């Protein structure tokens, strides 16, 4: 057993020394390999990160949103609609919502203003400072991190928005959402519904739309259908529909990006295979000499394996770490426009790279294993032939 390990150690020594001896060629391969892994890993980490962000968003999506449509456009909705919806069996709660945008001419930013009645779902999101207003308490707002920047609040904790008649409505900042909720709250100003109606000039018996919660989530589609039947002038959007739309867009984009990256990976593997299978006469002669000196075909293969493994593992680690930094620190600057381009209104948020064992294994299998095959198989073909190539004569 001791002899076996000594032999393995010697083979490993030889393989690492061999890598170093051909450092020019191997550094080139390492750089290209790392780049391919970096691109692939960045894409996967970003995908996971967006998926998690999307799940967070969808978790807050109302089970059913009901909007009134007139001539194909959304119109304000009378609260009497809420009463008719409440009469449907299976509906747990109906909440009116007022929302719209405030355009900041100074910064060019659109701030989302949302006003809710009662106990809003968003009221469960953590705050970096302050507290939510009490029910019915007016003139107080909870705002996102991006709003603090857009309005250049600094240490100030009051701000004003213009009403449509250009009169000012002032708010006190009751609280600021925590940064980890940025995907939901970055550009959000959350108000009590009475303040929302006041700001947007909406009558007390109107809302922008209605949010419907059901008793049994499995009945969302049934309840939605009943609402549509009872209120034919409304558009009823369910959470699964939003999820489906999101998935379709995301999957299409990620699919396109994946095809591009897998093409790059395939090209690299083909190149590696081509290079490795066309072993140079020096490499063939080296294998021949080693065999004459008593090395066996498996020994030659082990050396080639260790060489390939060390090189590809280093490239894998370097590529994966760089990808993590790319997504986490540089916010996936290379891929973000591709993956997130559909949403120009998306508030800014910090990507947190999500590293899953399965993803790393996938990258490993797609890159390291083919590279190992591309290095070991040609060596096997060479090592399996007659050993007298180095004899001459």
């Amino acid at each position, binding site marked *: 057993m001791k002899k076996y390990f*000594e032999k393995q150690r*010697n083979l490993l020594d030889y393989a690492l020394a*061999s890598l170093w001896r051909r450092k020019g060629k191997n550094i080139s391969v390492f750089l290209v390999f790392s780049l391919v892994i970096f691109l692939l890993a960045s894409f996967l980490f970003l995908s996971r990160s967006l998926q998690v962000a999307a799940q967070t968003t969808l978790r807050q999506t109302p089970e059913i949103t009901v909007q009134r449509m007139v001539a194909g456009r959304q119109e304000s909705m009378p609260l009497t609609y809420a009463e008719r919806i409440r009469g449907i069996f299976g509906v747990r709660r109906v909440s009116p919502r007022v929302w719209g945008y405030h355009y900041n001419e100074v910064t060019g930013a659109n701030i989302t203003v949302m006003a809710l009645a009662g106990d809003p779902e968003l009221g469960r999101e953590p705050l970096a400072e302050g507290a939510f207003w009490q029910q019915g308490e007016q003139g107080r707002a909870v705002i996102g991190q991006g709003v603090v920047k857009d309005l250049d609040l600094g240490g100030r904790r009051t701000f004003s928005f213009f009403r449509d008649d250009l009169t000012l409505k002032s708010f006190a900042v009751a609280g600021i959402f925590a940064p980890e909720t940025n995907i939901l709250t970055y550009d959000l100003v959350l108000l009590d519904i009475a303040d929302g109606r006041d700001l947007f000039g909406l009558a007390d018996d109107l809302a922008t739309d209605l949010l419907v919660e059901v008793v049994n989530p499995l009945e969302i589609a049934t309840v939605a259908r009943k609402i549509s039947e009872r209120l034919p002038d409304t558009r009823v959007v369910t959470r699964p529909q939003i999820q489906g739309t999101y998935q379709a867009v995301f999957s299409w984009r990620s699919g396109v990006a994946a095809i591009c990256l897998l093409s790059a990976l395939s090209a690299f593997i083909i190149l590696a295979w081509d290079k490795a299978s066309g072993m140079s006469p020096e490499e063939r002669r080296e294998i021949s*000499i080693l065999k*004459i000196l008593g090395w066996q075909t498996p020994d030659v293969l082990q050396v080639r394996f260790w060489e390939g493994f060390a090189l590809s593992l280093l490239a894998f680690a370097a590529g994966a770490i760089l990808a993590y930094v790319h997504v986490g620190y540089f916010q996936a600057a290379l891929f973000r426009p591709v993956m997130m381009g559909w949403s120009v209104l998306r508030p800014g948020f910090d990507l947190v790279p999500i590293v899953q064992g399965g993803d790393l294994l996938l990258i490993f299998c797609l890159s390291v294993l083919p590279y190992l095959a591309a290095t070991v198989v040609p060596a096997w073909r060479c090592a399996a032939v007659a050993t*007298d190539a180095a*004899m*001459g004569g």
Partner: protein
Amino acid sequence: MLIECENLVKTYRADAGIFTAVDRVNLAVNRGDFAVILGHSGSGKTTLLSLIGGLTRPDSGTVRIDGVDNWQQDDADLAIMRNRKIGFIFQFASLIPTLTVLENVLLPLSFASRPEGDRPYAMELLERVGLGGRQDDLPGRLSGGQQRRVAIARSFINRPEIILADEPTGDLDEATEKEILAIFHDFNKQGVTFLVVTHSRELAATQLNPRLFLMKNGTLSEMSSL
């Protein structure tokens, strides 16, 4: 009998048809012999050496080393036999260009023990072939003759029972050739068996009581004297 060949035949396909490189060769070399096979280029000497060293499989016939038929062994045992019993000196230097002189010499020891353990012996061999102090050089910095001497040092590193040498002094100047032959002589006196193929009658003449063979058109015959 340390080396024993019976009815050894090896043919190759050539454009002109089948070429018989080794034709029904019988050879018996005793332990401690210094055997020299003389012959012109293309007479089949190198092929015979490859057959004896277990590098090439014969079409027919047997090769026995220390009583064991080479081709009755599997690849692993054959490799072990080559590694432990035989030191090869090729027609050309056959060094690995990316290894240093010392690493080349230590190469056959990759399996026996930690090569570093035999470093003093490798250094001694390099001294004996006149390359003391050049252990860290790469082969590319040595002349053809110096590279040949490194290969000779390498062939002795495993303390083999048999040296199979193909034109071992081909590139060497006269003085170095004498030094190398003296080394061969020393090892031969210690019991190492030599089987040397050459077209140089001078090499055969310098050894004390060599057994002489003549290879001609693939056939081998023993000579009583030069």
